[in-house]
Structure formats: C-alpha cells, structure tokens
C-alpha cells in the first residue's frame, strides 16, 4: 500500500495523521507565530477569484513592508 510519505513531504504526512482537533490546536500555534512575525491578515489580491476587483484600494501594512504570507506551506 502507498504510504503518505511517497506522495507528500514528511511534514504533510504528519499533518495528515492528526485529528481535526489536533490540527486546530497546531494551527493556533502557527497563528501566534504568524502574528509575532508581523504577518498581515489582509488577504493578498486573488486575481482568479470571482470577487476580485482590480480597482479596489488595498490597505498597506503599518510597518510598510509586505505582510508575512505563509507559515510553512499550507496556508489558504
């Protein structure tokens, strides 16, 4: 039988094995790290979204740099 590690990286395989409640708690830790690193909660423009408005003004982060976007790889 195919093992998760044959299809995805070890970190993802480990994530697959958690329960939903465990994933929630782990994700909370990532949230904390994201905010400590100055990550912005303003979403990046998603040009493929049906809601995308190219003329909409976008708030800039207070520190003037682009926000931290992903902690590890699996952000949505």
């Amino acid at each position, binding site marked *: 039988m195919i093992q998760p590690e044959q299809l995805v990286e070890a970190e993802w395989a480990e994530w697959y094995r958690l329960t939903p409640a465990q*994933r929630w708690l*782990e994700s909370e830790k990532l949230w904390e790290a994201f905010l400590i690193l100055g990550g912005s909660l303003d*979403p990046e423009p998603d040009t493929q979204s049906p809601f995308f408005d190219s003329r909409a003004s976008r708030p800039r982060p207070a520190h003037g740099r682009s926000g931290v976007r992903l902690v*590890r790889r699996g952000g949505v």
Partner: protein
Amino acid sequence: MGGQACVLYGAAEFSRDTDLVILADTGNLTRLRRALADLQAEVIAVPPFQIRHLRRGHAVHFRCLQPDLLRMRVDVMSRLRGVGQFAALWRRRTKVTLPGGFSFDVLSLPDLVLAKKTQRDKDWPMLRRLVEAHYFQGRDHPTSAQVRFWMRELRSPELLIEVARRHRSACERAVRRRPLLQYAMRGDLVALESALREEEDRERDADRRYWQPLRTELERLRRRRVRGA
C-alpha cells in the same frame, strides 16, 4: 467552511480569514449582524449585506475592526456552486469538539470538496490533499460510503489505482459516473493523469460560467456605489 475547514480536514495548516455559510433568513441575519457588531465588522467592497444578495449566491465581505482581531476578514455566503441547499449542508455538517469542550460546526468533507472545485489554481492542490488525508485516515477499515466518495473525488492518480485495485467491484459500478476510473482499473498512470487534468479543466470552465452573470451584477453594484459616493 473555507480555509479553516481545510485546516481541520488536513489540507492546510493555516488560514488567515474565516468563511461562513449561513441560512439566509431574516432572523438569522439579525443574529449574525449582532455577532458581527461585537467584532466591529464592517462590510468591504460590494455587495452590501442584504439577504437578496446572499440568496443570489454572492459573498459579503467583512473586515473586523475590533482591536484584538487585527483586521481579520470574514466572508459570508449562503449558496455555493455545486452543492445542495443550506438545509442539506446543515444536515451533513461535521461537528468538531476541541479538548476544552468547545465545539463548532463545519461543512462536511464531501460538500467542501464540491465547493472547492473552482476556477482558482490554489483550490486544486487543496482538493487533492483534502481527499488524500481522508483516504489515509480511513483506508484500513472503510465504509462503503467512504469508498464511493474516494471513487468520486480522489485526485491522486497513484491512490486512485490503489483504491481501484482494492475495491474492484465498487470501481466497476463507479466508472459509469466517473469514466476516468477505467484507467485506474487498468493501472494506466499516464492516461489517468491526463484525464484528471481534463476533468479539472471542465470544472474550472463550469465555475467560470456559473460566476459570469454574478460578476456582471457585482460590476453593476460597483459602478452604482462609485456614482453614489
């Protein structure tokens, strides 16, 4: 129902916003307005927060100004393409309980998978991981409903071949609904990958067609808002 649900089901590790799917009736909207007021949430962009827009299938976008929430985004929808009415979604929902006892309701995995079949590139790797995680968790002692779900929705060619080998008769029944399973039964990886890409392209086209009239409405609302400003 969106990114946070993807975290719970194992396809993502983190999501910055919160998507809610709600029953669009007057009483429920009143309750939601109250909750959003607690978050100091303001509507951004169009459409405005009105029941008719939710019933048409639009999303209403909020930004929370409550200081602790750091401008978090909340998106509210009532209709999703490709899935049933709210009553059916509610019946099939998943309840997640955290160790402290707090619990909340999430879109069921099969409904989430259908809702994620969009025109956006980023949803497709998510879809693959959603079903992969479910398969790896359940494959040792699957129910027939789980097997049928994997036959319908798995997008990892290697796993489709494995599931076709392990559940041959279920696969023979499912091939009428999803013809690409014939390649899984034959173990033809190349043909299967190609058929999965074609399947994805069809879904993306269907999503674009679904949104075309709604995008036109959004554009009209934007113009009206600019004129009214």
